[in-house]
């Protein structure tokens, strides 16, 4: 061992370690932009990754059918009960009118923002390994006109934000992550709050709308939309649906547990909003 420590091999290994630490420091200083070698590797490996990802999705889907048969049975029962309750609600004119208003607002989002510049549909090339917040990589980057911190959506709702950008790839951090905070409001009660992820909620595929008034009127199934404050996200895009309302540990505010409108753990295609009315408003002010 003593001989090894004095040998040239040891010096070579020390040089390699120093080089790696240098790469790390350089990567930190890149401030979210991927190194060209990393970007090149991601771009070259993307077709194979897409192929293996599609196989994996099919295998996971088949396994879920068998593994979750009992859960699906219970869910089916619960959904049937829910349908019965909804049918009762349909008879109630006022409730129906309110739901219709919610839907009109949801449908009207695109008409409301004709100036929104959208990317071409981006394929999800792969999920980040073992990430509790389901970060993923998409097959478009700066060459396709994407920028850091552009919002990422599906037709169902908000998914996340670009946090790492390469020439032909980008990494998306989802709304399940505590790193992402979205100013939001309830479409019916107009209560405002901040949607962000927590570890416990993320592991159940949910996120949380915080800083609501303790006596909030928000109830289960209400739609939560982006409020567009701070210019990070367009106003009025669907984030998710309220599944539970809880008073915070402090006892001063309430929080709503949300189920994201998009199936974040099972995405195959997303769209990036490249520009929208009011983008970066607060940052430029």
């Amino acid at each position, binding site marked *: 061992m003593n001989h090894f420590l004095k040998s040239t091999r040891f010096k070579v290994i020390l040089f390699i370690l120093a080089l*790696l*630490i240098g790469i790390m420091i350089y990567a930190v200083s890149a401030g979210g932009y991927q190194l060209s070698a990393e970007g090149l590797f991601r771009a070259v*490996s993307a077709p194979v990754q897409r192929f293996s990802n599609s*196989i994996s999705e099919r295998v996971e889907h088949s396994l879920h059918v068998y593994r979750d048969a009992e859960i699906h049975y219970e869910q089916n029962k619960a959904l049937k009960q829910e349908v019965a309750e909804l049918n009762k609600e349909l008879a109630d004119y006022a409730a129906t009118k309110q739901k219709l208003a919610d839907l009109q607002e949801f449908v009207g989002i695109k008409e409301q923002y004709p100036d929104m510049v959208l990317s071409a549909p981006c394929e999800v090339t792969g999920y980040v390994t*073992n990430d*509790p917040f389901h970060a993923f990589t998409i097959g478009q980057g700066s060459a396709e006109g994407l920028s850091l911190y552009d919002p990422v959506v599906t037709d169902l709702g908000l998914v996340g934000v670009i946090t790492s950008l390469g020439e032909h790839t980008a990494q998306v951090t989802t709304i399940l992550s505590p790193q992402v905070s979205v100013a939001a409001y309830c479409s019916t009660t107009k209560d405002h709050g901040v949607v962000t992820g927590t570890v*416990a909620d993320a592991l159940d595929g949910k996120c949380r709308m915080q800083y609501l008034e303790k006596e909030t009127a928000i109830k289960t199934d209400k739609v939560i939309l982006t409020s567009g404050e701070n210019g990070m996200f367009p106003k009025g895009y669907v984030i998710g649906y309220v599944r539970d309302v809880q008073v915070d540990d402090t006892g001063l505010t309430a929080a709503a547990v949300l189920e994201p409108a998009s199936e974040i753990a099972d995405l195959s295609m997303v769209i990036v909003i490249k520009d929208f009315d009011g983008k970066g408003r607060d940052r430029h002010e």
Partner: protein
Amino acid sequence: MNRPLPARRYAFLQTVQWFIFGILALLCYFLMTSGSSIKPLLLIPLAICISAHFGEIPAAAVGVFGGLLTDIACGKLLGYNAVWLVTCCVMTSLLHSYVLRDKLLNVLLLTAVCTAVQGYLDFMFYYAIWGHADVELIYMRIMLPSGIMTLLSTIPIWLIVRHICEKCGSRRSFELEKTIVSAQ
């Protein structure tokens, strides 16, 4: 007693061997980045198993390659896992040169230590340091199952790597063979 391989044949087999290792590493990378369920960090046992059969410099190279691929797959800072994996691979090579024999149990132990430390560092620097609530759930529900899967995956990986090394004649076995023949 087998005769030592001619140098040209040996060089050819070595090229084939490293090519197969490269393909194996890419296969592990694609398996790691497919789907959104919890998966083993296959590149760690692969790098450890390969390092056990080679000298310190090839082991360091394997550590760099495996570590950088792990960084890309896990969305970590480039070089973060590589630094740790180079250290583990060089230690594995040195331990197998001076202390340990090429046995599954030894490789399992080394992979367990490497994965445990990597998981701990990952947990500390990427989650615990930010002070999020319920952060221990990430360790219990993601890192621990992934670590156990990584450890279990060492068994088939070790068998595959050992088979390739036996067929292609790793440097260590080649030198040992030469020594025995010259001694006779």
